[in-house]
């Protein structure tokens, strides 16, 4: 009995008229929690009832408090017939369970009905009294804080980052239950809303439990998703990063930072005496014992994730993952085919799913399942640590990276990360010093058939009893849990291939069409500093709202540590501005063909020619000029199909889709004169007759990387004069565009010719087979021409229709109008002085394909136009905010029906002060510049040579481990796919050749920190009757010009809206418009009731829209989430430094959170 929930119903207002005769309503309220219901008196004949009820008290377990929402139903009393429901309010109690979050929920909340929308508001008061020490109740995880924010939340410091947490729960979808045929749509919708509420609560509780076991007190980067699988059920899944957070006191906090002993000691701590480090240093009293017990079992590093392995369905035969990896899934080839493993050197990746020499890893590794004993000679005594779970893979990975490790001197971090089951981090930005190197994007996809899932447990479920899929199916490989595990393993293997030990900016998604489901995961391979993982405290007052005192103290410490560790030879000193660009893999043993040069900043380490990542641009990164949104869009038709055939067809299409997306991205990147992508998000959506691919990222020019070359068009048959003219026209256009873009984004460093030291290119053999024999391989260190558009640029031959299409795609992207910038990341390099004017918006468009027989090109054009027109609309609508930047532009595509394409966008427009922006731009121009060569042709040949081999190798593997293990059939035998894939590549190879490139770059240091100084909008002049407090919403983790002083809890809301009078509500647009507005209103109201004035890291994760205009019906489901916060304007903060309530009262040990 650890908790008492108290609720008081104060009043209602703006109620709808329920009694036509009197034009009034006799309203009363039912308050329900769990199985207990209380009622207020009927307040007769009023649209603004004043119930002023007593306190309704529910005595409940904290487990229930976490799972269940408080349900408030407003009804109209009717003496003679049944009472009519007016609407409901669900209140998530979770924020009240955490001592640091909200203490009371109080305010006007919209009364929501799934058929009528918002119908008035109700004023409630909700409180929770918690008894006892919560930690004793193992079923609950009260007190664990959840954050959607994918960086360490402001006003917290990460004492420790524990690692990846994931969980999923499954249930029948009420919409598909038999009872749904006899109940009303309203009842059905409400059942669904409530179920998802319960499932989210349960999911959160379970994740919380895992965090507790790991010894953490918070989940950062919490990402929860729904899979509406129709008949086969409803999946709610979540991933996140477990951390131990500590509230930053307002005082300079030297005392709260665990003093670091020497690095060597740290390493020892981490590897041998980790438990004590965990438990004591972080000052939280969570279960240390579990960690230490593990230790005694021979885990040299007690990484909390290990603790979970026992709970997982891990008993599959050890080779299962490997076998499964031979699925058609594109990602599969990744260790070898950088296509999926992505763009550390995307250029090549796309070009040819090359199998680089390192590919042999996979072969080796698969055969080395038994080599568990093989330990890297790390000297850390970590041998065999991970042997128990996922043995083969671990071993494999270890083996793969071993040589590299040996060469570089193994750092403690690597040893550390190797022991994590999934060294994945959902974070996208990190305190300086945490992210050491970035390898590139890793991704994996898998196509599954949903109707193949037969879960006996499901048949037995009744209504809302929640099923924990894991518990039922621990030994069943064909669970969704197992699917995800496969994918994650795959990601992990890609990471190893890139010489990295961790994935950052990790996310997972699905696309479902009927019975086919594409599971995708992607992230960025990286090497992290282990010190942060074990003992270091991450200062969070980093980038945007940096506080000089805290920040510098953190930075100092970091530097000191890094210095010392470097002196010990474990980790090189990475200069903050370029260190993350340095290749993590061994240059003599590159996992894929890469063009390496010495870093243009420090000249000491090698960097790739292009860098793709899924994370945010590190604040300390040296960037030249500004960034910009880059999108690749692709539509591919497919035949209608069913079952396995359909799934196979889809998996066969996927590689081409990804390949072309990468090609587009690369072309567009070059067109803008940039060399790196951040925040890359590739979305593949499946429909009955087509596949949609949308890749979005923010392009920047990293000063450390070589300058990209131009794009050169070449005709294959230079005989025809008009044709030549045509080509030269196009060439001119492209050159003009590049020049214009460079100016637009300030990517225009003065040119300095310098000698380039080329990187060793793995196979001299291919070079001889180049089409373009003149290519200056970097080894030849030739004098290079720096201008683009000359001989050594990226070459597109336009005989090929695809190439023509590419060029068109390149040139049809209309430039952003003056005064606008755009990006899909948190911050925009080159813009710092934000004002406090922000405008978050959501826009949805659905396009109907009227012409049934569209070609791929036709579809592409439609899809591209759809996206471009959306952007144009934004620029127009937001013109009053200029100069401004559209930040965090998040596009979501879907194919809701056969002939419909849906694009939903959420973003925030932030205006900035123009003068200063210009100044910055000028600054950028005066920096250093360098040049580089790119050598691509070779890679192409190389890959072609190698692929068949590797394919065979992998095919063998798949053969030897028949994937019968996974009844969830994987469609596409790897071998088949590979061969067709290679054919495709061959085709491509003939039409597209890439040459080396050189241009110049400049150095610029950019650490955008917003300094809005405008006034807060908080107080609202009221007319009679009081006014509504302004609640800001933003998909970013910060509010410009303001300081977040308190996190009040996570907002995670799910709504269904249905109508049977579509025309009367203004058609589909009117219907959706008001629904989105209602969702916003409800989010704002709940935040305000928690005492907050903003939502940060807001996202609309689901927007499923279905219509049936003939029946005049439509239905829409929306899921939104974010972090409710209290912020104060920096100007106010300065003025009243004593005032902020919570900021000053929080003590430094608040981080315990329990």
């Amino acid at each position: 009995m650890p908790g008492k929930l108290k609720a008081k119903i104060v009043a209602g207002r703006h109620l709808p008229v329920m009694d036509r005769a009197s034009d009034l309503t006799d309203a009363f309220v039912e308050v329900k929690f769990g199985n207990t219901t209380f009622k207020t008196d009927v307040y007769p004949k009023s649209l603004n009832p004043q119930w002023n009820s007593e306190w309704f008290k529910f005595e409940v377990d904290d487990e229930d408090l976490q799972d269940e929402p408080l349900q408030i139903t407003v009804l109209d009393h009717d003496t003679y017939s049944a009472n009519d429901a007016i609407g409901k309010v669900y209140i998530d109690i979770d924020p009240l369970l955490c001592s640091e979050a909200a203490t009371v929920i109080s305010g006007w909340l919209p009364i929501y009905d799934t058929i009528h929308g918002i119908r008035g508001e109700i004023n409630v008061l909700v409180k929770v009294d918690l008894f006892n020490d919560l930690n004793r109740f193992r079923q609950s995880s009260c007190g664990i804080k959840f954050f959607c924010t994918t960086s360490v939340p402001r006003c917290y410091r990460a004492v420790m980052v524990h690692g990846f947490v994931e969980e999923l729960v499954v249930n029948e979808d009420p919409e598909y239950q038999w009872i749904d045929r006899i109940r009303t749509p309203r009842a059905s919708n409400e059942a669904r809303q409530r179920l998802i509420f319960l499932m989210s609560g349960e999911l959160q509780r379970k994740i919380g439990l895992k965090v507790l076991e790991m010894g953490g007190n918070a989940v950062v980067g919490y990402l929860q998703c729904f899979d509406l699988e129709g008949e086969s059920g409803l999946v709610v899944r979540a991933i996140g990063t477990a951390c131990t957070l500590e509230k930053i006191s307002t005082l300079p906090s030297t005392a709260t930072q665990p003093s670091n002993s020497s690095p060597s000691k740290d390493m020892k701590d981490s590897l041998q005496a980790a438990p004590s480090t965990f438990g004591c240093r972080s000052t939280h009293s969570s279960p240390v014992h579990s960690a230490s017990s593990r230790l005694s079992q021979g885990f040299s590093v007690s990484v909390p994730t290990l603790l979970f392995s026992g709970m997982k369905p891990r008993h599959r035969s050890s080779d299962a993952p490997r076998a499964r990896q031979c699925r058609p899934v594109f990602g599969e080839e990744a260790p070898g085919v950088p296509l999926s493993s992505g763009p550390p050197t995307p250029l090549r990746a796309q070009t040819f799913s090359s199998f680089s020499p390192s590919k042999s890893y996979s072969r080796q590794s698969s055969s080395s399942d038994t080599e568990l004993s093989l330990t890297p000679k790390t000297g850390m005594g970590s041998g065999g640590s991970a042997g128990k779970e996922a043995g083969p893979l671990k071993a494999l990975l270890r083996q793969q990276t071993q040589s590299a490790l040996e060469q570089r001197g193994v750092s403690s971090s690597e040893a550390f990360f190797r022991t994590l089951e999934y060294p994945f981090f959902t974070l996208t930005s990190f305190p300086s010093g945490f992210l050491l190197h970035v390898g590139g994007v890793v991704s994996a996809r898998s196509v599954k058939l949903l109707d193949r899932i037969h879960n006996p447990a499901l048949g037995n479920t009744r209504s809302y009893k929640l099923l924990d899929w894991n518990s039922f199916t621990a030994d069943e490989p064909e669970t969704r849990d197992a699917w995800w595990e496969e994918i994650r393993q795959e990601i992990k293997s890609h990471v190893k291939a890139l010489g990295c030990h961790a994935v950052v900016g990790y996310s997972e998604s699905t696309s479902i069409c009927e019975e086919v489901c594409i599971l995708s995961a992607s992230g960025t391979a990286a090497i992290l500093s282990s010190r942060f993982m074990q003992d270091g405290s991450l200062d969070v007052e980093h980038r945007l709202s940096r506080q000089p005192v805290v920040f510098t103290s953190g930075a100092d410490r970091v530097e000191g540590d890094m210095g010392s560790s470097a002196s010990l030879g474990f980790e090189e000193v990475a200069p903050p501005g370029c260190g993350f660009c340095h290749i993590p893999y061994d240059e003599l043993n590159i996992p894929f063909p890469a063009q390496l040069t010495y870093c243009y900043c420090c000249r000491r380490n090698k960097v790739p020619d292009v860098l793709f990542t899924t994370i945010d641009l590190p604040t300390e990164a040296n960037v030249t000029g500004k960034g910009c949104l880059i999108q690749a869009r692709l539509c591919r038709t497919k035949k209608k199909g069913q079952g396995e055939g359909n799934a196979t067809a889809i998996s066969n299409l996927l590689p081409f889709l990804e390949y072309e997306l990468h090609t587009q991205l690369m072309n567009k990147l070059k067109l803008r004169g940039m060399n790196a992508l951040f925040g890359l998000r590739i979305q593949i959506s499946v429909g009955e007759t087509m596949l949609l691919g949308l890749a979005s990222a923010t392009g920047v020019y990293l000063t450390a990387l070589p300058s990209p070359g131009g794009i050169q068009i070449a005709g294959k048959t230079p005989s025809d004069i008009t044709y030549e003219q045509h080509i030269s026209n196009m060439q001119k256009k492209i050159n003009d565009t590049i020049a214009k873009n460079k100016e637009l984004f300030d990517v225009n460093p003065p040119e300095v010719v310098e000698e380039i030291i080329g990187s060793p290119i793995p196979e001299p053999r291919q070079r001889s087979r180049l089409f373009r024999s003149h290519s200056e391989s970097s080894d030849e260190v030739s004098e290079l021409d720096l201008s683009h558009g000359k001989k050594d640029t990226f070459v597109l031959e336009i005989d090929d229709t695809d190439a023509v299409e590419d060029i068109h795609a390149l040139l049809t992207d209309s430039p952003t109008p003056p005064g606008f910038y755009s990006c899909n990341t948190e911050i925009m390099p080159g813009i710092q002085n934000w004002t406090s004017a922000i405008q978050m918006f959501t826009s949805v468009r659905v396009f109907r394909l009227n012409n049934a027989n569209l070609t791929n090109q036709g579809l592409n054009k439609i899809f591209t136009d759809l996206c471009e027109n959306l952007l144009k609309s934004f620029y127009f609508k937001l013109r009053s905010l200029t100069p401004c930047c559209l930040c965090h532009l998040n596009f979501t595509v879907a194919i809701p029906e056969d002939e419909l394409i849906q694009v939903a966008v959420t973003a925030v427009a932030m205006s900035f002060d123009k003068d200063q922006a210009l100044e910055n731009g000028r600054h950028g121009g005066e920096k250093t510049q360098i040049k580089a060569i790119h050598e691509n042709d070779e890679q192409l040949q190389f890959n072609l040579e190698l692929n068949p081999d590797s394919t065979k190798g992998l095919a063998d593997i798949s053969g030897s481990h028949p994937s019968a293990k996974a009844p969830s059939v994987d469609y596409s035998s790897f071998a088949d796919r590979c061969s067709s894939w290679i054919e495709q590549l061959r085709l491509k190879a003939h039409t597209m050749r890439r040459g080396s490139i050189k241009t110049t770059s400049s150095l610029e240091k950019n650490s955008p920190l917003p300094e809005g100084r405008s006034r807060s909008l908080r107080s609202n002049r009221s007319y009679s009757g009081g006014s509504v407090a302004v609640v800001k919403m933003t998909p970013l983790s910060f509010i410009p010009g303001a300081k977040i002083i308190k996190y009040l809890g996570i907002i995670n809301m799910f709504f269904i809206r249905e109508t049977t009078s579509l025309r009367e509500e203004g058609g589909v647009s009117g219907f959706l418009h008001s629904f989105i507005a209602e969702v916003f209103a409800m989010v704002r109201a709940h935040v305000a009731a928690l005492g907050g004035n903003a939502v940060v890291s807001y996202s609309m994760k689901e927007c499923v829209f279905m219509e049936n205009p003939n029946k005049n019906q439509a239905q829409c489901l929306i899921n939104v989430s974010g972090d409710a916060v209290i912020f104060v304007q920096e100007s106010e903060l300065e003025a009243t430094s004593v005032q902020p309530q919570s900021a000053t009262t929080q003590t430094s040990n608040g981080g315990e959170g329990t």
Partner: protein
Amino acid sequence: SVELDVFVGNTTIMDKEVYQLWLNGYTVNDAVKVRIDGGIMEECEASVEVLLSDTMDQYRTFQMCERLLHHPTKLANQLLFQIPPDRQAMLIERYYAFDDAFAREVLGKKLSKGTKKDLDDVSAKTNITLKSCRRQFDNFKRVFKVVEELKGPLVENIRQHFLLPDQLARDYAAVVFFANNRFETGKKKLQYLTFQDFALCAGQLINNWTLGAVDNMMEDMDVDLDKEFLQDLKELKILITDKDLLDQHKSLVCTALRGKTNVFTEMEANFKNLSRGLVNIAAKLINAKDVRDFFIDLVEKFIEPCRSDRWTSIDVNLYLTHYTNSAHILDTFKHHSVWTRYMGVIKSCILRMYHE
């Protein structure tokens, strides 16, 4: 084809120009045309599709807001749209703003369904779209209904319930007052008068002739004329029925005006007629029917005769001033306060209504 297209901002984005077009009753396509003609495409590098999408979106937003605008006080504490206060004020003010030409047409008419049906005539006559006419008419009706039953000062009530700026509230008060008392304004002879002419008169009547004007206790409404006062007005008849008084009055006025006006002879000749006219109007006001004809009577009995004699406004002003003041000097005339209250309003109204 784009089947669904919505844009929702956390802060509701509203373009003043589009709002005005919406209020003016333009269709989406017409509004787009107007915007294009305004040169916005060149200015913002926008295409027709973008404009169309934006216009539709805004129109939808306005339609959703309209429900709230019917009860402006709700706009401030509704949760659906986050609108900054200054924007809210703008929305309300413009929604309730009306065209004088339209108001002139329905002034004094019963705000009934029948009148609403005839709005297409009004629309044709005033060149205001039917849609806009309906909105303005509904606004009149809504304000009328709310204020009708309220006690206290009319203008203040309107301002508080509809959050309108002062001038607009006064105009509404005039509309409500006219509708309530059903003043005839449509006769041909009154056509030359503008809405603002009537609005000023209404203001005068409200401030001086209603019960609220004398009784600050706000026991009754401002909408109805003070019955007692109307009763008392009958007493003024003595000014024309008593021959002596009439002559005395005439000589006093003539003495005062002699040499001060170019129309002295005409004035002298017409004095008795004019005086009879004004006093008869006063005496008959107790009848509701005659209240309706108040403005007609003023025009027929006073303004037209003066105009045909080519009086200037200055002449009229001079005459009315002395006509009013002289009455107080009359020995046997006792009804000074009623006279002042009556003539004050009459003078203001006539001066406003007297277009040379």
